[in-house]
């Protein structure tokens, strides 16, 4: 028994050397709390269903109820061997080749033009571009049909003048990729114009002033200063637009969609890979093959994102 000083136990926030892990945990706690709701929702609606899809892509559905792990790679083979697989792959490739570069180019050009001449008119235009984005995909398709059907369109005279008499003259397999590009542009461009506009606004004024003093004209400023500086945002747009467009579904489904499901435009019942997945699940009852194809689409989207990130060094943090 020696004299012992009794002191209350130290509380975690009192300055006491703690274990390394714990202090780091404490330091990062607010960050974890902020991400928590996102992670929760992502697990419930993103990763969870994705893993479930992985599980049932190996299940056999020939009896109508899933028999787990009984199918092996049969569902994946069923997708590759389906007579519509190469058709839908060709369609989506054509659509991506047209829609992704065109969509990005139009958005960047519009954003640059808007930002060049700030004023009341451009603010109004910026809002106007944004408004069409408030209309969701299915509604937009109906609006498009209203515009493009020569028998009901407000631009009837124009359409008939161009030699279009019936909806079938306007909507058919050759015009579909362009049509879907336009639909995608009007629903999504407003948002991206706002983002790119914001990126352009963030370019330091001194930089542009210095360029002006050095004798740079507007064209050179755009090409050599503005576009390189908003490059990360363009890459970001590419990744998201590409991943979104690979999953094209609503537009062809409503425009064609088969018996009583759509508005009856001349669109093949299965035009995009995502529609093929839907067809596997709800026409043929093979949820396994539907999951297999959905996962393949996911891999395409992720793969493209990975390649672009590696190629451009998107995530490299500048020091």
């Amino acid at each position, binding site marked *: 028994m020696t004299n012992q000083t009794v002191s209350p136990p130290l509380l975690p926030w009192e300055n006491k050397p703690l274990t390394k892990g714990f202090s780091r945990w404490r330091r990062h706690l607010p960050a974890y709390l902020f991400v928590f709701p996102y992670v929760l929702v992502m*697990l419930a609606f993103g*990763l*969870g269903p994705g*893993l*479930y899809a*992985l*599980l049932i892509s190996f299940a056999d*559905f*020939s*009896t*109508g*109820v*899933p*028999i*787990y*792990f*009984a199918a092996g790679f049969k569902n994946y083979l069923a997708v590759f061997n*389906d*007579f*519509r697989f190469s058709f839908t792959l060709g369609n989506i490739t054509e659509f991506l080749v047209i829609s992704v570069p065109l969509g990005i180019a139009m958005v960047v050009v519009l954003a640059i033009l808007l930002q060049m001449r700030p004023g009341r008119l451009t603010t109004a235009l910026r809002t106007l571009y944004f408004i069409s984005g408030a209309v969701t995909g299915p509604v937009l398709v109906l609006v498009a049909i209203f515009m493009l059907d020569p*028998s*009901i369109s407000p631009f009837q005279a124009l359409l008939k003048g161009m030699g279009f008499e*019936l909806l*079938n*003259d306007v909507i*058919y*397999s050759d015009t579909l990729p362009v049509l879907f590009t336009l639909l995608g542009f009007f629903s999504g461009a407003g948002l991206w114009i706002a983002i790119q506009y914001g990126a352009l606004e963030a370019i330091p004024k001194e930089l542009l002033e210095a360029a002006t003093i050095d004798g740079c004209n507007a064209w050179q400023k755009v090409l050599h200063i503005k576009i390189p500086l908003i490059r990360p945002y363009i890459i970001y747009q590419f990744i998201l637009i590409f991943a979104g467009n690979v999953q094209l579904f609503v537009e062809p489904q409503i425009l*064609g969609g*088969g*018996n*009583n*499901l759509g508005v*009856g435009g*001349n669109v*093949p*019942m299965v035009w995009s890979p995502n529609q093929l997945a839907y067809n596997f*699940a*709800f*026409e*043929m*009852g*093979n*949820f396994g093959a539907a999951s297999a194809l959905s996962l393949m689409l996911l891999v395409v989207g992720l793969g493209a994102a990975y390649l672009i990130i590696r190629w451009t060094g998107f995530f490299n943090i500048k020091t």
Partner: protein
Amino acid sequence: MFKQTLKYVWLVAVLSMVLAACGQQPEVVTQVVEGKTVVVTVTPEPTENPYDENAPITVWIDADRQPAFDAYVAAHPEKADLLEAVTVDREQFPAKVLLFNNTNQGWPDVVFAEPRLVGRVADDAHHFPLDLKPWVSEDVLSGYTGMDGCTFGDEIYCLRYDLAMFVLYYNKPLMDEFGYTVPTTWEEYQELSDKVAAEHPGYYLGTWGDGWTFISYFDASGCPSHELVDDNTLKIDMTDPRCVRAAKLVDHMLDNGTMFNTDYFSAEFASVVSSDHLLAMPGPAWMFGVFGGNEDSSWYKTSDQQLGVATPLKWADDDKAMTPAMGGAAWTVSNHTKNPKLAVDFIQWVTTDPGFWEGTTNFPAYQPIQSLWQDAVSSNPLFANDPFPVYQEAATLMTPLDKWPRFDLIAPLSEAVKTGLQEDRSVESILPDVADKLAPLAEVQGYQVDVTK
């Protein structure tokens, strides 16, 4: 840091996989068969009588069938509490059944649907309908017409509600004014088209623009574009003379301008009919309702005593006319129902009750009550002649092609027809396309397909 996060992600991933696997209803058991381990799903065997006469049932209907449901409830007030009607889009019916199969619950007990949809839920993956043979007496069953579409092998999966056989509709005052006689054969119909083209251009004798218009001409000719040889064999022979003659007829009329070029319900075609520019056209029984029979109808507007109804056209070489069908529905019962007695009683009542059928606009499939329907239709001021004898005769002329395979025919046929029109190709030249569109769909549905094109 990144590695640590990855570790957690894996943990969650593996956990959810395990949970997902455990949470599923059908129990997974492995068995050793011929030396190999095989996973089998065990469906729980019922341990007690699965039927309960007091179990409630759910009835899937469309808005037009609400009166039928209400009439049954009014006639059976003691069962009112057991019945629930849900209005659905029945084109989604096969897809919904697949989802219910996955969750092993939720099936409706009774569904109003065309035999083509019943066919689509009758395969192994859907496994939906109840065989009605043990539940409906032989006398009653023999009273129905058009039961081919409901018969699958030895089993009966639905009771026909109405028939949608085709007749020839014509504009009586216009025919009289032009001095034409109503054609009785397809050959006369073609001759009439030449006369109309020469003497009264701008008048029409039909339309060609989607899958239903294809059915209207090709099924009426007996063209084996989708002939079920047996439950698992589909014959597609587009070189058959019966296909070629139908194609030549449509081509001829498209060329001379008497065949319009949209589906039946486009705004353009409706305005042709409403402006009295349609001289005659084959159409299904219920179409008289579209010809201004209904106050709310936004389609064809015709005046009273104008609509003539003539027997379906026949090809001169054939013994008798063959009528296709455009719809014509039925009622089916789920094999998962807890109360088959009530479910079957319901579908039998709504298809056969004379009191309820008096005054409906659909042609009843149940023969003993067809004459009742006569009173309603014969006194309708819309018609120029008494249509009942024509409808009754046409009902006996249904083509066997009305029995559909287990996939949708209209979407692929529409594709072929519309693409042909868009590319300005003759109907005869799109016949191989029709085979190309239908054959692979049949194959993925497990049919043995016999194709000639």
